[in-house]
C-alpha cells in the first residue's frame, strides 16, 4: 500500500479538477465569511459572465491587471491550501492543474501548445474564453492577465503574457517568465 503524497495529491487534484461534478462536490460555504470554498481554499465569489465582459472592455492594461490578480489569487488559494503536497510538483504539472481549474470555474478551455519549464516559456490556445467574440488582441487582455496570474503561481515567478493571435474560434497566448 504505497502512498506517495505528492503523486497521490496530483492524481487526486486531477480527478477533482477534471470533472465538474467532483469539483462542485468539494465546494462549501465558508463559515467565516459566507464565501465559497473549493477543495478547502476559501474566498471564491461567483461573478456573472457579463461582469467579466465589462472588465474586458476597460483599458487593456487595467483588464490585464484585474485578470492577473484574479488568476494569482484563485490558483494561489488552492496552492496555499495544499502547500506541502504540491511544493515539489514541477511547473508543467502545476500548469496542468491550473488549466483544469480555470476551465472548471468558467474561464475557458485551454490547451498547452508549448511549455518549456526551465526557460519559463508557455504558449496556450484558448477556446470558449469570455472575450472570444472580439477579434482585437487587446480585448483578450482580461483572460491573458488571468492566465499570467495562474502561471506565475505555477512557475513561482512573474510570467508576462501577450496575445499572439486571435482567430474566430480560438486565441493564442504566449507567456514568459521574468
Amino acid at each position: 500500500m504505497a502512498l506517495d503524497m505528492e503523486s497521490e495529491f496530483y492524481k487526486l487534484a486531477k480527478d477533482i479538477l477534471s470533472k465538474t461534478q467532483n469539483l462542485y462536490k468539494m465546494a462549501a460555504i465558508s463559515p467565516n465569511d459566507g464565501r465559497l470554498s473549493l477543495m478547502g481554499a476559501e474566498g471564491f465569489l461567483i461573478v456573472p459572465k457579463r461582469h467579466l465582459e465589462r472588465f474586458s472592455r476597460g483599458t487593456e492594461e487595467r483588464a490585464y491587471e484585474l485578470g492577473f490578480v484574479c488568476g494569482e489569487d484563485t490558483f494561489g488559494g488552492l496552492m496555499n491550501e495544499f502547500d506541502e503536497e504540491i511544493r515539489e510538483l514541477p511547473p508543467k504539472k502545476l500548469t496542468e492543474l491550473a488549466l483544469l481549474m480555470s476551465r472548471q470555474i468558467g474561464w475557458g478551455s485551454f490547451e498547452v501548445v508549448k511549455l518549456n519549464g526551465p526557460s519559463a516559456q508557455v504558449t496556450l490556445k484558448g477556446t470558449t474564453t469570455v472575450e472570444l467574440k472580439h477579434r482585437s488582441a487587446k480585448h483578450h487582455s482580461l483572460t491573458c492577465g488571468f492566465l499570467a496570474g495562474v502561471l506565475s503561481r505555477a512557475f513561482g515567478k512573474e510570467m508576462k503574457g501577450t496575445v499572439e493571435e486571435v482567430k474566430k474560434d480560438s486565441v493564442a497566448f504566449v507567456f514568459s517568465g521574468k
Partner: protein
Amino acid sequence: MSNPKIALYHDDASGERYEEKAFQKTGVKYEKIGPKEMVLDILEKYDVVFLPGAFPLRTHDKGGFFAFIKFLKRINVIYRSHIMNYLKDGGGVVSVCASVASMGRRMAIPLPIRPLFIGANPLGVFDFHAKYGPKTGVVDLEPVQYKDSPHARKIVSEVLGDYSEDQFSSLYFRGPAITYDAKHDIIHPAIKEGEDRPKEVVVARYVDEDPELKDKGAIVYREYGSGKAISCSVHPEFSTWDLFDSMIDVVARR
C-alpha cells in the same frame, strides 16, 4: 457546556495538518500533543482526543514507511492502555483515516508489511474489521438507515448533524472500509439482535462504485466504558469540515 478541550495528536508520520486546517475554518481551539503526552494523566485533561491519519511514504519532513509503521504500532502497543482507560473513564476519541484501522478488532495488513505488525493487534475499542481502501479521490457517502432501531437513528442524526438527511461527498485517501463479517455486513450484530441501545453504530456508508468500498462502513460510533469514540475513514476537512463539529459534540466528555 463550555467549549470542550481538544487534543490533536501528532508525530513524525501524522497528517494532523488537515485537521488543523478544518479547526481553523470553524474556530475550534485545540492543543497539539506528541508521543510523550499520550499517557493517561495528560489525556485526562482533555475532553476529546483526535488521532489523525498518517503518511506511509516520506514527503518533505513527514511520514515514510517506517514512521508510518511506528505510528500504527505506537497506537496499538504503546498508547494502547492509555487510550482504552481514557475512554473507559469517559473521554472522547475521534480517529481519522489511517488511525481508524487501529481502533477496530481486526485490521487487514498488506502482506509485505504483515510481519512488522506481529504483536500489534488493534485496540478492539470497536468491533469492526478494517481494510485499507483502494483509491484516492472524492467519494459519496450516505447516512445508514435504521428502520427498527430508534436509538441507532438518533446516533446517526447526532453524529452526522446537518449531513444526516442526504448523501454527501468527502475527500478520501485510502482510509479503511469497515465491515463486521465475511459477508461484508455493516449492521452491528447487536442491532440485528434487536438491542434497544446498541453501543456501536455505523452511521455512514460508502455509495462509491468501487467494489472495495461500495456499501461498506465509512463512519462509526461507539460507546466504550463511560466514553465515546468515532472512527471516520474519510477526510471531511476539505468540504464538510463542520462534520467534526457534530462529532466533537457527540464524543466530548460531559
